[in-house]
């Protein structure tokens, strides 16, 4: 019985099967990702350069100084308007490819080399599709819903941009002093778009999807915001860039590692007088890990990712709130959904994982930044923080796809119970503990 049935059959096979090495798929995907990063960076920086330098200079030639100033100030918004579609295009491809990796498939590989242009083709297809309005739909709300869903996601990206470029040139405009509050406030608006879309499309499935998303968003916004409150208490700042800058100086000053108090843990090992300080560090570490996981879970539910994707449960509601939307409107919904995922991942990596700072000591980072600033074609020191932040955010997105590949959808009552009976009490307790911990002077 040593020879298995398959081995026995193999003796009769005419030639070996084409089975690419398991690492080939991963390697090819990394190349595709690198090219897409190039496209995203190239497009965004070109548009920014256009709005910061070339168009204002052209306008100043004709003595239109005030308009030139206006154009210069519009640059960050334009950068976002280019960054978000390009990024969402890659995000969809990323999701499909990584999911294929987890489910032992090949994923899209027909359009372009190794599926490189698949989502571009999809986007072009959606652009040319007929725009259908269902009979009996509320025309105004039906047209307004995708805009309400998409608009806030663009706006909520503004403070993240300032953090990602470390206040480089025109992006200093985006440095809002209430950054984290602004993002959490704005990201709660899109739910209105979902509810309106579900209500306006005159379809029972859409309506149920919209109502579910409303209930879900209300339930999961509370633990998310309460977590943010604990973070504000512990870090002492609500400016995203300041929160990121507080984490300069290596892996162990990141907020996820006990809010930069990791060295306190060393006091634990020779148990004695100073072990109380060590216990304080341990409490902070547990606190940080708990806040990180609560934030990730409630943020996942907030953007309707898979274990919490009840608003668009395919097996129950056809496609949920976006069942009746076609063409560009559907594309807007799709775009906004993935951008919301990107924003929460960016926020998590800024707040917990050190933002745009390398996990090395500050000297190394400073040398790299100085070298980039002295680049002969101009100052490109924005490249380092934005790339680092991008990689961290994509790491978290990978985790979210990983969760999607693993966990099945929750039942509706489980979803509600988990939020109201577990997460909200836990995050309330967390605020209390955070207040106590931050008031202790070491």
């Amino acid at each position, binding site marked *: 019985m040593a020879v298995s049935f398959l081995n026995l*059959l193999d003796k*009769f*096979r*005419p*030639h*070996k*099967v*084409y*089975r*690419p*090495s*398991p*690492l*080939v*798929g*991963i390697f090819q995907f990394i190349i595709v990702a690198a090219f897409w990063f190039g496209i995203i960076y190239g497009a965004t920086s070109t548009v920014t350069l256009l709005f910061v330098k070339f168009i204002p200079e052209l306008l100043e030639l004709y003595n239109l100084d005030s308009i030139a100033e206006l154009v210069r100030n519009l640059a960050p918004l334009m950068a976002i308007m280019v960054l978000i579609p390009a990024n969402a295009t890659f995000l969809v491809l990323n999701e499909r490819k990584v999911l*294929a*990796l*987890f*489910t*032992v*498939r*090949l994923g899209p*590989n027909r359009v372009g080399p190794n599926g490189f242009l698949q989502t571009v083709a999809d986007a072009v297809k959606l652009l040319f599709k007929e725009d259908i309005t269902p009979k009996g739909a509320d025309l105004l709300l039906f047209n307004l819903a995708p805009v309400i869903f998409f608009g806030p996601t663009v706006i909520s990206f503004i403070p993240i941009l300032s953090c990602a470029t470390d206040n480089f040139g025109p992006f200093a405009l985006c440095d809002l002093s209430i950054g984290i509050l602004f993002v959490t406030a704005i990201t709660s608006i899109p739910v209105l778009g979902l509810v309106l879309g579900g209500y306006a499309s005159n379809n029972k499935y859409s309506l149920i999807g919209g109502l579910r998303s409303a209930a879900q968003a209300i339930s999961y916004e509370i633990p998310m915001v309460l977590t943010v409150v604990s973070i504000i208490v512990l870090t002492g700042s609500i400016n995203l860039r300041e929160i990121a800058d507080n984490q300069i100086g290596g892996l162990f000053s990141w907020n996820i590692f006990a809010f930069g108090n990791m060295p306190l843990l060393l006091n634990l090992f020779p148990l004695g007088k100073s072990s109380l300080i060590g216990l304080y560090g341990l409490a902070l570490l547990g606190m940080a890990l708990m806040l990180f996981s609560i934030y990730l879970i409630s943020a996942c539910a907030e953007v309707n990712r898979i274990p919490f994707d009840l608003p668009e449960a395919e097996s129950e509601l056809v496609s949920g709130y976006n069942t009746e939307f076609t063409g560009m409107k559907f594309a807007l919904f799709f775009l906004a959904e993935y951008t919301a995922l990107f924003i929460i991942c960016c926020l998590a990596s800024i707040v917990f994982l050190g933002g745009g700072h390398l996990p090395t000591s500050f000297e190394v980072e400073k040398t790299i930044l100085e070298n980039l600033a002295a680049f002969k074609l101009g100052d490109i020191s924005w490249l380092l923080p934005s790339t680092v932040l991008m990689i961290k955010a994509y790491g978290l997105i990978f985790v979210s796809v*990983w*969760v999607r*590949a*693993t*966990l099945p959808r929750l039942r509706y009552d489980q979803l509600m119970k988990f939020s109201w009976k*577990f997460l909200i009490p836990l995050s309330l307790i967390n605020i209390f503990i955070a207040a106590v911990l931050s008031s202790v002077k070491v």
Partner: protein
Amino acid sequence: MKEKNIVVKTVEGLYNIGNGMFTVLKHAFRSPITSSYPDVTPELYPTTRHRLALTVNPDTAEHLCIACKQCERICPDNCITVIPDPEKKGTIKEFVLDHGLCMFCGLCTEVCPTNCIINTVDFEMSEYSREDLIYDIDRLTLTQDQSRFYFDFKQMPKPKPKPVKPAVVAAAKPVEEIK
């Protein structure tokens, strides 16, 4: 009591989720099962039943059919028509096979005494009309090299060259060798 229950549940849940996520992560390092067909033709077993064909003797290029009409008789779909040569006994003039009727049961290949009619591993036979699916002897007969490949591939006994007079005896020999 209830507080303890929640703690135990949470720890168990975290352990189980972690276990499941680790299992999924391991799958990322497996080679994909999907076969990309038009780029890579799938490997098929010698016994797979696809397009029917007539072999020739790989050594002498002589047609192996002896016009015994056994395949025509056993065919459940009546898709085979054998027309023997009236001038020379034991040879065929025409062999017509309608692949549109054929259900690829492989009965004809089993009864054939000389291993003349075989199922090849070729399955790409789309046509633009039903008439094109009716194969005549020219389209059915394989070349010498193709026949040699299929005799090796299916591990069929090599045919003996036909003796001129006792044709029936010569046809029976390969069957004995199989046994």
